[in-house]
């Protein structure tokens, strides 16, 4: 039955023109950065093109992914959320979980769309393909984290713009902390997944209380 909620969310997201624009912008910026930095600009710090791209890539994902979630998802807020819960006879937490899962799936597609640029950067830096898969795993983790954090912000504020700004700032803080505290890529990705799970669980529990009844 949660599958129905996920299917609905995916249909809604797939029909948003913003999604196509976001994917095009993401691929263009990532490819443009790789080619311009890799071919034209010298690496001042001695870092490889791949390492510089990773910083840019994470910053881009932390900004773009919350925007996609905030703009593309089916905005059910306030009493409409309660009505939806009643209509489908499902707890609000089920709806929250379905939103987080479906949007994480959409963000995974965006992350995969950027893979060619990452492969080019790895080739330029003479790195093995495992570096690409590690970067892709990080991008997927960032996608899951973005989905959870942005949905949590939307539930709290009910406003697209505020949610985007709030979740972008939150993402930046979490990614910075993750990069400093857990330098090992696998541990860093796992820590992001744990945070995503915790945020989703907290948002789901809160929604069961906040969206139990309509406003009076």
């Amino acid at each position: 039955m949660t599958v129905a909620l996920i299917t609905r969310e995916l249909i809604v997201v797939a029909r948003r023109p913003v999604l196509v624009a976001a994917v095009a912008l993401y691929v263009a910026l990532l490819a443009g950065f790789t080619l311009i930095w890799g071919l034209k600009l010298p690496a001042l710090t001695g870092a490889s093109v791949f390492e510089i791209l990773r910083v840019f890539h994470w910053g881009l994902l932390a900004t773009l992914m919350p925007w996609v979630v905030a703009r593309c998802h089916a905005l059910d807020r306030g009493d409409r959320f309660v009505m939806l819960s009643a209509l489908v006879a499902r707890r609000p937490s089920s709806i929250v979980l379905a939103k987080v899962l479906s949007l994480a799936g959409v963000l995974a597609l965006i992350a995969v769309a950027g893979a060619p640029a990452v492969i080019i950067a790895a080739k330029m830096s003479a790195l093995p393909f495992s570096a690409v898969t590690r970067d892709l795993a990080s991008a997927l983790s960032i996608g899951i984290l973005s989905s959870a954090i942005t949905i949590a912000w939307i539930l709290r504020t009910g406003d697209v713009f505020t949610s985007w700004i709030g979740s972008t700032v939150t993402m930046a803080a979490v990614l910075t902390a993750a990069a400093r505290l857990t330098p090992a890529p696998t541990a860093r990705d796992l820590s992001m997944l744990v945070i995503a799970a915790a945020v989703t669980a907290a948002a789901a529990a809160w929604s069961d209380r906040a969206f139990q009844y309509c406003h009076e």
Partner: protein
Amino acid sequence: MTTVLRASGLNKRFGATIALSGIDLQAAQGECVGLVGPNGGGRSTLLKILATLLRPTAGSVEICGVDAVRAPFDARRHLAYVGEEGVAGHGLSAHEYLAFVASARGVQSPRSAIDDALVRAGVHAAADVDTLSTGGRRRVSLAAVLLVKPQLLLLDDPFAGLDADARVAFSVWLSEIRDGGTTIVAALNEDRDVRAICHRVVRLEVKTSGAHRVPAVPVVASV
């Protein structure tokens, strides 16, 4: 006959305003109860409490044996509600919307059943729910809950915005699912609608005394 709905001693206050007081209501399986009375009499509030969308200030509601005040999410599995709030399609077509509702409610509805429901409701399958007229969205809402066939159907002015043909079509449809065992409680404004589908009516009166509103009192009468 099995009692599907049992509400007793229902009270509802919005701040200092008393919306409902001392409401008792029962409905058996396959029975249709009409809520009639003037606007502001508390019919919509009563239906929202029965639909677990509002929490009563006092009193109890039992739906299919489930305490709807203590366990609203469990009670919702047995009921469906159509109110004045329009459906939020988010770009879904009418067919997709019905398929979504049926699937989410765990109802096995083959494509043909959804198509039949849409034909009966007079809505084009590919129509964007968000761009339909008020009457069109009401048709989609009603078709969705009628497809689900809940044990308790709560309807707030279900024929609002519908033309004469649609009114007749939905009256027949509601009568069919009522005869199939679904209990219906509906707030209705027109006598012809009451006569078409209801077994009995509950009248909610509004009496004023000075600046205060006197609680609504149900008056049960046979149709």
